């Protein structure tokens, strides 16, 4: 990057290097952790259960944080993420409908359905927030949550009619406990999404400045918007179908990074992804340690830690600004 001065570039490199080291350390810790102690762990357990679990945590964390960052740029709003922008609720509705329609649907069919619903639903949400002129930034996620509540109530209604309330609740409690070899591989599809996100990062930053500005800067606004939405809804659907809902990571991680490093996604995207992976790894390790040998659903740990971080972030920013 020719325009970035040397000092800054070296610092960036250092930060990423430290993050990467931390991710490796935490991954090793995650691999060595389990009901069966490290010395007795056989290759079989490692390949069948431990490795798939650590890999799926890393992929989910990285892609959820990136999806959150993209969603924030697409809506030009810091608080809009797939969970507060109704994507997750739509994806859940899609998953429910395919379960009612053909209970034996394959993982790919389920993912496709919840992806399609998430994609169409998020477009409808963007349409709504474009129609309503919202003066305050926090009103946008409020409208998103109201919208998500409507979709959720349709899903709950259908769930009651078809005795599927328990399945809905099991998706809401995301957990990595059920990840085994052969049950998570579809998550690898997030990696191409992450690569596309890196290629488009600059354009996402530009379209967050608004339609007119980005067009005059030579970005194809509509096409970029759709690429972003495709990435966000694919990631949401994949994680939902394999793991379940993991709240707050898409909100907290990008906000923490942009608070210190500004909004440029091209510069931040590796940091955001690595930090997302690290966050989820840490949450999972805590989930497994607190009640060892039992474990807590990761959605619970991620909510508690994520909420606390977010509250600190908001209050800290207020104090900083004052």
């Amino acid at each position: 990057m020719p325009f970035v001065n040397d000092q800054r570039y070296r610092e960036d490199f250092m930060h990423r290097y430290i993050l990467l080291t931390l991710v490796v350390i935490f991954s090793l810790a995650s691999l060595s952790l389990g009901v069966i102690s490290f010395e007795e762990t056989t290759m079989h357990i490692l390949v069948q259960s431990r490795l798939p679990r650590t890999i799926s945590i890393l992929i989910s964390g990285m892609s959820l944080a990136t999806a959150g960052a993209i969603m924030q740029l697409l809506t030009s709003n810091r608080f809009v993420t797939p969970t507060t922008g109704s994507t997750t609720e739509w994806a859940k509705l899609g998953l429910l409908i395919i379960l009612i329609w053909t209970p034996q649907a394959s993982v790919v069919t389920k993912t496709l359905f919840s992806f399609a619903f998430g994609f169409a639903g998020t477009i409808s949400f963007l349409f709504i927030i474009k129609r309503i002129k919202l003066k305050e930034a926090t009103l946008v996620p409020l409208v998103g949550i109201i919208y998500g509540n409507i979709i959720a109530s349709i899903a709950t209604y259908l769930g009651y009619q078809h005795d599927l309330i328990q399945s809905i609740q099991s998706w809401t409690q995301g957990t990595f406990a059920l990840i085994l070899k052969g049950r998570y591989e579809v998550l690898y599809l997030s990696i191409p999404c992450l690569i596309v996100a890196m290629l488009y990062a600059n354009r996402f930053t530009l379209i967050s400045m608004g339609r007119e500005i980005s067009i005059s800067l030579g970005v194809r606004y509509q096409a970029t918007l759709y690429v972003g939405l495709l990435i966000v809804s694919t990631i949401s659907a994949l994680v939902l179908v394999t793991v379940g809902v993991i709240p707050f990571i898409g909100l907290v991680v990008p906000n923490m990074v942009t608070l210190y490093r500004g909004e440029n996604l091209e510069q931040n995207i590796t940091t955001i992804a690595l930090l997302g992976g690290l966050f989820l790894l840490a949450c999972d390790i805590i989930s497994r340690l607190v009640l060892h040998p039992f474990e807590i659903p990761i959605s619970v740990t991620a909510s508690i830690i994520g909420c606390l971080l977010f509250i600190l972030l908001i209050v800290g920013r207020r104090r900083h600004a004052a």
Partner: protein
Amino acid sequence: MQPRHTLTILVILVALSAALFLFYQLPGGAVAYILERRAIKLAALIVTAVAIAISTSIFQTVSGNRILTPSILGLDTLYLLVQTLLMFLLGAKSLAMMGRISDFLLSVAVMIVFSLALFSLLFGKHTMPLTMVLFLGMVFGQLFGALASFFQLLIDPNEFLTVQARMFASFNSVNTALLFSSSVIVAAIACALVFFLDILDVLSLGRESAITLGVDHRRASRLFLIIVAILTAIATALVGPVTFLGLLVVSLARQIAPTYRHSIILPTSCLLSMLFLIVGQLLFERIFHFNTPISIIINFAGGIYLLSHLILRGTV
């Protein structure tokens, strides 16, 4: 239509629906017992309706915003958390001994303290915009929910079952044990409000005008927000979260009685809210025999109404 006529019509409608609720499809035997059960349920519906309608309309007046409702503050999950913590710390037996009234009062007190702490951000040194406070409230709500599910995992499953019914109130299992104390509080607040109607009218003009007209805006807002917190806490404890009922009825009330006078807006929204709940429950329980909780339908209808209203008006 004259507001007075609207009110009369609403009163008649509410009375009719209440009578229907009591006497429709009375089976042959055990009439006295069934009537008693129905009357208790009806009373619970009415108390909830009043609490939700008053709290939402006051909240909108104080905040000067028509799409906000105190129900999104996360009080429902806080209630859940308090119940879970009590169960965790005391165990099912001592919790049963503690009695529902003191348990209820404790939960309501915690909810009030929390809402006041949140609202104090509005008036503190670094004032936050109200929407930010609400957003924070929602985040706290998620936090409480997550903490509650964490502690639920720690509780002995047998104990969990014994007290589960106490935690998840809904329209189908109204918390009748709390009915008397909560109806007394709601009635007292409603009566007290009669003396403050004109202050509410002035507050709805906005902060600057209210101060110009000689109202201590800060003190008045704080007082009304305390009332909002108490009422929301009571409604949550009685029937669980009904996020959009308040928004729906207050917004409808403002449409059928287009006035700023709280002496008309408040009773209209209370009556509408009663009508909605009674008729809704009647339709659900005895005509359609739906197995879906009515709160889901209320949230659906309320949400759709609110969103379409926003989209049509194009602004908040």
